[in-house]
């Protein structure tokens, strides 16, 4: 792993965020509380994965039981599938508040066994992310810690301990590895903007990545920027399809994005009102590449990549159509990952809120 600049050490996660695999089975983990992305060699012990499906009922209850808590006390933040073994990795937050503990969990596709991935002494690299905080932003929120964290300050004869933390933060909403770089979409807790960071990998101290601002035009009439909620690279990383917090689906080519320049993506679809895009994945069916979009309200949407390339920008405000798409009547899907090509793995919540892993056959989607 030295060729990727990973060095052994302890990865101290402060929060559980998005995860995605990069080259050579390296897992990228976003830690929003620490404003850091870690690249970790997870040393996956599994044999090469087969072409079969993998399903697991009540994955939240199972992971909760393993971690010693009720299902309601865990939050599955993200899911990724190891590219070689197809083992399933979950970024999990266990507990709430001060008792909360981020955990990386691995589920074996061979037998469904659950294990936590040790992060105490692993090859890793780290990079600071985003706008958190700007170098000239000196605002700090000062609080009295309960433990021994923070710094000791002397006021006259009294010593007190204070924790000072930045007020402005960036929250990673999605990540993907494409073309030798980690793409990171984020949401600021202050200004409303659309920034996609492109961080070359291996990480280097001098280069923390360029920030690309992407606008989109609604129906040829209104131009806005908005935070990217979910995105997926396709066409070998040449193109990106991104969906915004406000539901337009926008295409742009990575080659068109240059540092500091304003880029305008092409709106190719609308996912409809009162809906949030949750995750996107690409898969191949009959030799053609397709994208799946999981939505909070509108089921699972399937889009052919060739239709994206031929779609002209949307012009009719009252026709939320755009690229042809099929809507699968599969509700409650929150996360998607490609499971070895033949299947797409979905993290799905049922009406009772129980969560399951389900394999969707690529040929049948």
């Amino acid at each position: 792993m030295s060729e990727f600049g990973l060095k052994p050490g302890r990865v101290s996660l402060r929060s559980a965020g998005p995860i995605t695999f990069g080259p050579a089975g390296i897992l990228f983990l976003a830690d929003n509380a620490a404003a850091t992305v870690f690249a970790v060699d997870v040393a996956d012990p599994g044999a090469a994965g087969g072409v079969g499906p993998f399903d697991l009922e009540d994955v939240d209850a199972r992971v909760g039981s393993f971690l010693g808590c009720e299902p309601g006390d865990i939050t599955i933040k993200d899911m990724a599938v190891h590219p070689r073994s197809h083992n399933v990795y979950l970024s999990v937050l266990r507990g709430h508040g001060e008792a909360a503990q981020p955990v990386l969990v691995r589920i074996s596709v061979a037998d469904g066994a659950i294990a936590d991935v040790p992060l105490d002494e692993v090859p890793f690299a780290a990079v600071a992310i985003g706008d958190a905080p700007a170098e000239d932003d000196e605002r700090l929120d000062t609080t009295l810690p309960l433990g021994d964290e923070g710094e000791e300050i002397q006021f006259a004869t009294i010593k007190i301990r204070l924790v000072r933390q930045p007020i402005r933060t960036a929250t990673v909403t999605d990540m993907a590895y494409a073309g030798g770089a980690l793409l990171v979409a984020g949401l600021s807790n202050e200004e409303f903007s659309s920034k996609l960071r492109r961080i070359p990998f291996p990480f280097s101290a001098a280069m923390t990545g360029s920030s690309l601002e992407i606008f989109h035009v609604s129906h040829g009439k209104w131009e806005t920027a908005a935070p990217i909620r979910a995105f997926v690279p396709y066409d070998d990383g040449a193109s990106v399809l991104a969906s915004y917090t406000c539901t337009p689906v926008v295409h742009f080519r990575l080659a068109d994005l240059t540092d500091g320049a304003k880029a305008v993506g092409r709106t190719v679809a609308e996912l409809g009102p009162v809906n949030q895009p949750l995750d996107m994945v690409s898969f191949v069916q009959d030799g053609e590449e397709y994208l799946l979009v999981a939505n909070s309200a509108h089921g699972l949407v399937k889009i052919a990549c060739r239709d994206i390339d031929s779609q002209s920008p949307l012009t009719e405000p009252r026709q939320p159509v755009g690229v042809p798409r099929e809507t699968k009547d599969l509700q409650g899907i929150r996360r998607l990952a490609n499971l070895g090509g033949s299947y797409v793995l979905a993290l799905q919540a049922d009406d009772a809120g129980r969560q399951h892993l389900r394999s969707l056959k690529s040929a049948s989607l």
Partner: protein
Amino acid sequence: MTEATWSRSGGGDCIRLAGLPARADVRVFPGTVVAAGSLPPMAGQLERDGADLCFVPRFAFLDGTSYTVTVEGTPAAVLVRPRPERPAATEVTGIHPTAAEVPVNLLRFYVWFSAPMSEGYAAGHVRLARDDGSIIAGALLPAEHELWDASRRRLTVLLDPARIKRGLPGHQEAGYPLRPGEPFRLVVEDGFRDAQGLPLRVPAERRYEVGGEERRHVDPATWELAVPPAGTCEPLHVTFGRPLDHGLLARCLQVRGSGSKLVDGTTQTGPGEQSWQLVPSRAWAAAVHQLIVEPVLEDLAGNSVSRVFDRDLTRLEDQPRPAQPVTVVFRPG
């Protein structure tokens, strides 16, 4: 009969089991109902301590959770981790904007708490309500990713931008979440948990009147400056003409004097986020000063110095302005 008690081992909590053979098949499950074989046991290891066995968990026991111990597959004991009984003390210390009236295309709120908070409660405990108590549904952006500052004391709450942006189906079909002339309240319910798992001491709310659309650039050239006399420490007072964003105001304004030297002092945002002032720590020099405004500074509707939130491509005045700081020059007299 197995005797199971809370105990300590190696600096952490454990479950101590008496009266068991060394090779007993002991497992621990969270909850009081254990469906045999359906769930994995809690991660941990059994350690012999004299005549007892200790279950040392890999992840600490959680307060308020019950744990069932099985021996040879049969439930043998249930232990409950008590939840510390403390009075609720955390409260909301501020809700922004503080302006009495907000534009119909209002974009965000900030809620300040007196202590660090737990994640996962914002979507269920922050609401917009009408005067009759009914909830304005679909107004706030569903917050899968909650937007906190690093100390988890300030929460940023966005209204659904799809309802605000012209041309998007959300706006076209459902319209603005707010309506001009119809007051509403932002309500923070007391079920919102702090970092210790306790509810708020009291719920909190702020009531707003709703005005018309705000779709203009933030334009520092229109601000009114009350310029202080030289040789005094009287404040530089800046009036914006409309409320600006609470979070951004605190970092987007600065004053530089001769030689571009930063003027140190105490800054304060005025009532309703409609003004700002700087009291210098040293007397004003009789020289040209610059009020420097960062281009990302936004108003309550997300319009910034450099761009309007939702640009009408046919309106020349809505064209983006350079993403460079804007300078307003003044000279203490």
